[in-house]
């Protein structure tokens, strides 16, 4: 028996956004979270005694202001430790390239590159505006003549048209190609090209020459429109976002139960009937919202046998291979990067000397191997937020690409070897850093999959590529948050527009549910 209007499977950040909006619409919402805490990829975890780190997402780059406002997150305790951070492309010789807003510094960057970047960035922002519009509503279906969908399509078309002929042609041309070619067209400096192309491949299974990386880059730049002129860091790590969201949800009347893994989403004759927990406890309900990724939702929770063959095919075709690992280090002191000012140490540090280096790093993962020289996106959060480690000590959180889901023979035989590769690489840029390491933790794609319940370990719950975005996300038949099972909705990163701690998938899903099911 149940007294809830909505049962939500998983309490990630998108789920919290969705639950909050549903509760505000007058519904009684119960969230069932398998983990010990809510928040999903917005999490802070102590990985060594006294040392905490953002255990999945490490930067806030694109949280929608609509989510911030509607959930009153600041009122619920959300604080920034730093905003609009610079991106520093590290050089072994200490002549680093710094990207601060639209300004480039250091590394003998030429005036041409500076001008070219300003022009490029402005053009990308014009493109990004069109995306941001499309992201703020459900993805339109193409064939059914629904008024709201037509309006969205008209707006999209109009947005393209208003770009003017040159920009429109350029967007249509580059959206299908790759960051490598676009960078070659625009810039000279190898590290500038690598730094920007990295933004197109973060979290993905793509190298600079992979198609779809331009879309990945634009996706990330949507953050600029949301007020992020560079990455931001939350006080207390990304878990602070989860805490504020949980507080906001609780204030709205949402009930959240952690440590309660849902074992199945139950359905009868194509209509959802409730959920069953691993403990055997059952909740019945006609409205179930899944915050977990589509593969987990359909393959493991609903079960392929309860779906039609075409749906099963679509789900099993979802590309969700990740190549991303996380490295967490506890340090006895602040590492010293050659030539890097103390102030910049707290900014985003990137190791990606040139695009071929990044492409070679990607090559490995195609063959289920890890990069011998990976690319890295490094955060030393304790510079801006000392509370994460004991006094005078520090933590490092780094995105490391690329690592396969399963290297030959399994991760057990490779974990230390890959950790050593990454530490040796860091040592080249920050001599002496190995001596500071007092604890380390490597989260492979497999670990991320397990800890955050994401099939494949993909932080977007499925590759962000043109075959899997908009009306194709996660697949035809589940592209407007509703699914082939009546009463079952999706609200996670696997849905339009995608992940990246943006919150729009959850917000759009809530709006769609309210529209379809009616006001409570």
């Amino acid at each position, binding site marked *: 028996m149940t007294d809830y209007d909505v049962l939500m499977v998983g309490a990630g950040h998108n789920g919290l956004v969705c639950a909050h909006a549903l509760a505000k619409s007058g519904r009684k919402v119960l969230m069932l979270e398998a983990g010990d805490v809510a928040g999903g990829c917005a999490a802070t975890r102590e990985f060594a005694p006294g040392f905490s780190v953002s255990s999945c997402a490490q930067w806030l780059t694109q949280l929608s202001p609509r989510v911030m406002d509607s959930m009153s997150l600041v009122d619920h305790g959300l604080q920034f430790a730093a905003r609009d951070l610079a991106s520093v492309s590290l050089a072994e010789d200490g002549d680093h390239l710094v990207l601060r807003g639209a300004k480039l510094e250091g590394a003998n960057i030429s005036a041409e590159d500076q001008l070219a970047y300003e022009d490029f960035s402005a053009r990308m922002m014009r493109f990004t505006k069109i995306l941001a519009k499309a992201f703020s509503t459900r993805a339109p279906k193409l064939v059914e003549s629904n008024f709201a969908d037509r309006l969205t399509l008209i707006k999209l078309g109009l947005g393209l048209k208003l770009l003017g002929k040159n920009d429109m042609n350029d967007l249509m041309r580059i959206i299908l190609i790759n960051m490598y070619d676009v960078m070659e067209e625009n810039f000279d400096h190898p590290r500038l090209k690598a730094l920007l192309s990295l933004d197109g491949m973060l979290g993905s299974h793509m190298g600079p020459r992979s198609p779809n990386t331009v879309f990945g880059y634009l996706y990330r730049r949507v953050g600029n429109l949301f007020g992020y002129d560079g990455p931001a860091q939350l006080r207390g790590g990304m878990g602070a976002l989860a805490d504020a969201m949980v507080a906001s949800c609780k204030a709205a009347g949402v009930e959240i139960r952690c440590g309660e893994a849902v074992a199945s989403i139950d359905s009868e*004759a194509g209509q959802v009937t409730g959920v069953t927990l691993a403990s055997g406890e059952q909740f019945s309900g006609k409205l179930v919202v899944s915050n977990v990724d589509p593969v987990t939702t359909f393959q493991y929770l609903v079960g*392929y*046998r309860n779906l*039609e*063959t*075409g749906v099963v095919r679509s789900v099993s075709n979802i590309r969700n291979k990740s190549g991303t690992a996380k490295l967490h280090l506890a340090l006895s002191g602040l590492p010293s990067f050659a030539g890097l000012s103390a102030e910049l140490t707290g900014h985003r540090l990137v190791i990606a000397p040139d695009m071929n280096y990044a492409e070679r790093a990607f090559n490995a993962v195609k063959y289920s191997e890890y990069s011998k020289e990976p690319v890295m996106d490094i955060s030393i959060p304790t510079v801006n937020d000392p509370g994460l480690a004991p006094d005078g000590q520090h933590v490092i959180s780094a995105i490391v690409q690329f690592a396969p889901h399963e290297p030959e023979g399994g991760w057990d035989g490779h974990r230390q070897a890959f950790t050593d590769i990454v530490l040796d690489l860091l040592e080249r840029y920050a001599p002496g850093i190995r001596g500071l390491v007092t604890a380390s933790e490597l989260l492979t794609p497999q670990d991320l999959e397990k800890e955050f319940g994401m099939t494949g370990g993909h932080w977007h719950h499925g590759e962000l590529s043109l075959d899997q975005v908009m009306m194709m996300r996660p697949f035809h038949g589940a592209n407007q948050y509703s699914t082939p099972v009546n009463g079952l909705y999706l609200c996670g990163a696997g849905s339009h527009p995608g992940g990246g701690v943006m919150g729009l998938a959850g917000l759009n899903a809530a709006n769609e549910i309210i529209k379809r099911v009616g006001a409570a």
Partner: protein
Amino acid sequence: MAGADERMLLTTPFHSRVAAACETNCWGNWKGYTTPNSYIDVELEYFAIRSTTGVFDLSPMGKYRVTGPDAEAYLNRLITRDVSKIREKRVGYTVWCDDEGQVLDDGTIFHLGPNDYRICAYARAIDWLLWSAEGFDVCVEEETQNVAALAVQGPTSCAALMAMGLSGLDALKPFGIEYFDFEGEQLMVSRTGFTGDLGYELWIAPEKAEDLWDRLFAAGAPHIIKPFGMEALEMARIETGFIQAGVDFIPAEETIRQGRSRSPFELGLDWLVDLNKPVFNGRKALLDEKSRGSRYRFAILDVAGNKPANNSFILKNGKQVGVVTSAAWCPTAKTNVALAQLEMPHGAIGEELVAEIYYQRELHWTKVNAPCKVLESPVFDPPRRRQTPALPY
């Protein structure tokens, strides 16, 4: 069995005997296999089916084996019928649909034993069958090449087969399966067929195919047994109102244009759809169709005159309301039959329509507007088709 090069059609395990019997040397391509359109004379072959015994090599028919603990559950999700009602040693006619409720194929399901089934289908179906197996503990294998099959059809078929030594065959009920020993090899016999008459299908290992053919024709000689080809089969199946995939409907996976596939309701196969089953491919779409109404209706037409209404438009008050998909002058029923798909709401039993028939004699084209009428049931449906024990005609 493979062709000498990839452009060459495959031959069936009976090929040496078929080729020797095929006096017309008129061959066709049936899903990659070379098969006779006729052997001696189409009319004679047709009358063998209707008056004595006709034999048809159906080895090219797609055959798929489904085994494992979830075999029944798997099939129940795959097809529109309730598989649990097809008992062991029984055969069921069925269709299967895609998610849009459009027919992928029709065929038969043989319940061979516990958790053991065979699907016989017109279209090559292995991809769809394997995709459908995700999430089920089943093994799905194609066995088209591993099983040789003959259809033995007509009033004296039971007598001919009993003369070959299949004692007790007369007791086999329609859609039943029985096993016999054939020279140390298992011979499976099902009382099934595509002619609408008393008849059987024989299933055996390819190595025994030629022996089976030889002994069957030797034993059947007194019962006037003759091989028949595709064209005679076509006459017989139209006469008895059986639809043919690829002719009366296009399998949904093979259609390219929107709206060219058909649902089971639109093919007159409502009786094969069990909407009470909680989950099966196409259920949601078929429920929708049920409430929204179908686009087309399948009809058997009695067309005036003796000109077969092949490819005719069907008119109502001069307006086109449908097309003929199959047509033949049917000698036994002495009826000019057409199978047609009519736009709703046309096709109610008894409705009178007009078939616009074009025919030519020495390049002289003539148009006939032949009145026609929607029949309630097929024109050929003899009691002996169902009679058990089968009588020794």
